[in-house]
C-alpha cells in the first residue's frame, strides 16, 4: 500500500484549493468573554425555577405532602429551568441577530472578523440550551430546542442522538439522522470559516457516526451509510445510497425506498404475470388452519 494517495498529484506544483475533506466545526478558540451571557441566563432561569418552587411550597403547607411530592417537583423544576434557559437565550439571540444578521459565506476565522465573532457568540449561546436538554432526563426534547433556535425541522424527523450546528440546516419530512452523527453547517479550515446551508430532503436517512459537511444537499430518499462523510458542497442524487469510509461515494440505487411507494406497485400489477405466492406469516397454528380453509373454498 502506498504511503500517499497519488504521488504524481502530490508532487506537482499546482496548488489545489478545493475543499474535498471534512474537518470540524468545534469552536477553534473558547471565547471566555462570551461566557458573560451565561451567568444572567442561568441566574434568571434558575430564579424562575426557585420562584415556582417557592409558590408551590406556599400553597402546600403540609411538609409530609411536600416530601411526598419532592421527586415530582424536582422533575418539574428541571424543565422549568430548561425552558427558562431556552427562553432567555432566544431573547439574547434575537438581539444579537438584530445587531448582526447571520449569513452564509467564507470568512476569516480570526478575532476581529465580525462574522466570525458573532458566529462564535451564537454557538456559545446555543450550546448552553442544547447542553441542558441533552443532559436532562428527557433528551428528545432537544428536537424542540433545535426548532426553537433556528433549524428548520418538524417533529416527523429524528436527530436527538446526533450533534448538530444550531442554524442553516433544513430538514424535509421524515428524516432520520443516526446515532453519533455530526451535521455541520459551518466548518473551520485553516484560517477560514465556511458557513453554508445543509439541506436534507424528504425521507433521507443518515447512518450512524457519519459526518455531514456544510453545503451538502441530500436529494429525496437518498441514504448516507454508516461511518461516511460527505464533502462540502456535495449534492447527493435522489434515490441513491452513498457509502464509503471517509468520503461518500455512490453505491447503488435505493430500492428499499420503493417499497414505501405503493403507487408504483399498483401500476405494475397489470403489466406483469401474476404468481401465486405462499408466504410464511407469523400466525398461530390454529389460525393457519382457518386460512387454508378459506383458500380451498375459493
Amino acid at each position, binding site marked *: 500500500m502506498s*504511503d*500517499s494517495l*497519488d504521488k504524481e*498529484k502530490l508532487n506537482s506544483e499546482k496548488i489545489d*484549493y478545493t*475543499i474535498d*475533506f*471534512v*474537518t*470540524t466545526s*468545534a*469552536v*477553534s*478558540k*473558547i471565547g*471566555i468573554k462570551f461566557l458573560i451571557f451565561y451567568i444572567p441566563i442561568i*441566574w434568571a432561569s*434558575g*430564579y424562575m425555577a*426557585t420562584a415556582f418552587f*417557592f409558590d408551590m411550597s*406556599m400553597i402546600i403547607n403540609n411538609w409530609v405532602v411536600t416530601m411526598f411530592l419532592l421527586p415530582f417537583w424536582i422533575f418539574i423544576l428541571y424543565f422549568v429551568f430548561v425552558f427558562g434557559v431556552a427562553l432567555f437565550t432566544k431573547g439574547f439571540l434575537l438581539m444579537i441577530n438584530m445587531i448582526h444578521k447571520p449569513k452564509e459565506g467564507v470568512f476569516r476565522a480570526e478575532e476581529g472578523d465580525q462574522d466570525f465573532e458573532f458566529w462564535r457568540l451564537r*454557538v456559545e449561546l*446555543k*450550546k448552553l440550551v*442544547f*447542553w*441542558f436538554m*441533552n*443532559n436532562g432526563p428527557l*433528551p428528545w426534547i*432537544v428536537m424542540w*430546542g433545535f426548532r426553537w433556535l433556528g433549524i428548520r425541522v418538524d417533529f416527523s424527523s429524528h436527530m436527538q*442522538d446526533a*450533534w448538530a450546528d*444550531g442554524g442553516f440546516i433544513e430538514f424535509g419530512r421524515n428524516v432520520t439522522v443516526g*446515532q*453519533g452523527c*455530526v451535521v*455541520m453547517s459551518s466548518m*473551520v*479550515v*485553516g484560517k*477560514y470559516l465556511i458557513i453554508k446551508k445543509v439541506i436534507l430532503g424528504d425521507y433521507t436517512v443518515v447512518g450512524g*457516526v457519519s*459526518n455531514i459537511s456544510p453545503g451538502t444537499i441530500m436529494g429525496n430518499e437518498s441514504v448516507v451509510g454508516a*461511518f461516511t*462523510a460527505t464533502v*462540502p*458542497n456535495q*449534492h447527493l442524487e435522489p434515490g441513491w445510497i452513498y457509502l*464509503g*469510509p*471517509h468520503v461518500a*461515494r*455512490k*453505491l*447503488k*440505487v435505493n*430500492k428499499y425506498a420503493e417499497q414505501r411507494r405503493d403507487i408504483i406497485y399498483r401500476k405494475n400489477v397489470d403489466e406483469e404475470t401474476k404468481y401465486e405466492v405462499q408466504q410464511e406469516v407469523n400466525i398461530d397454528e390454529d389460525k393457519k388452519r382457518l386460512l387454508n380453509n378459506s383458500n380451498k373454498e375459493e
Partner: protein
Amino acid sequence: MSVPSSLKVGPNTTLTLAKKRYLIFYILLIWISIFTIQFEFWLLWDIYDIGYEYNVHFYLFLPLMVFVMYLSAIFVSLIFAKLMLTIVNFIHKPREGIFLRHSSDKDYRYWSIRSVIKKWPLWISHKFPFPFMNNICLKIFGVKTRFSNSLFEGFVDTEFLDFGKNVVIGQSAIVQSAVIVGNLFIIRKTILEENVVVGAHSIVMPGTHMKKNSILAGSSLTTVGQELEDGWIYLGAPAKKYKRNVFSEEDLEHIIAEEIEKEVKIDIKTEDLYTMRKDKHTKT
C-alpha cells in the same frame, strides 16, 4: 451547535474499568465533593436562617449558589485527586513503553490506579456547561495545554500529551496516549503542535506526532507512532497524505468562495482509498 447527546459518542472519562480494589479512591473523591456541596448549603441556610418565615434573599441567590457549589465540588475533587496522584507518582513514576496487560505488571497496575483517580474529577468537569473546565482539569492532571485549545467536544487522554496553540479536536474525535493491543499495553507520548486540527470522528493513536498546521480529516485514523508532516492534510485509515494545507495563507476568501460553489468529483479523486464493490446493481 450542540454537545454530543444521549448517545455519548466518546467516553468522557479515562478509559479503564474501575477495578474493585481501587474503588476506595473513587468513593473518597465523590464523598469529599458531595460533602463540600452539603457544607455550602448548610452555610447558606445558616446565614439566612430560614425557618418558618420565608427569606427572599435565600431564594434569589440560590441559583447562583448552586453554580458555586458545583464549581467548588469540581475544584475540591481536583485538588484531592492531584494530591493522590502526587503520592502515587512518587511511589511509581509513570513512564512510556510497552508493558504486559496483567495485574502482575507494575506499570499497568499504576496506570489503572491513576485512571481511577482521574475518573470522577474529569467526569464532573466534563459535565459542566462551561467548556474551559475541561482545559483546567487537564492542566491540573499534567497535560501541556492552553486555553486557546478546544478539546471539550472530543475525548482526550489525561497524560503523556503535548498540545501546542490553537489545537482543535473535532466532535467525538479521540486522542490517545495509551492503547491496549491483545495482551500488550502501550503508552507513548502523543504530540499535537500548533494549529493542528483533528477532524470529527477521527482517532489519533498513541505516539502520533502531528506537526504544525497539519490536518487530520474527518473519520480518519493514524497508526501508532505515525508522524504527520508539517503543513499537509491527511485522510484515510491509516491516514495517508492527501494534499498540501494551503488554507493558512492570507487572502484566500474569494478563491475558497468560488471553489465551494463548484461540485467536487470525489469519486475519481479518492479512487485509491477504496475497494470497489462490483455487482449487477452498481452503476457507475
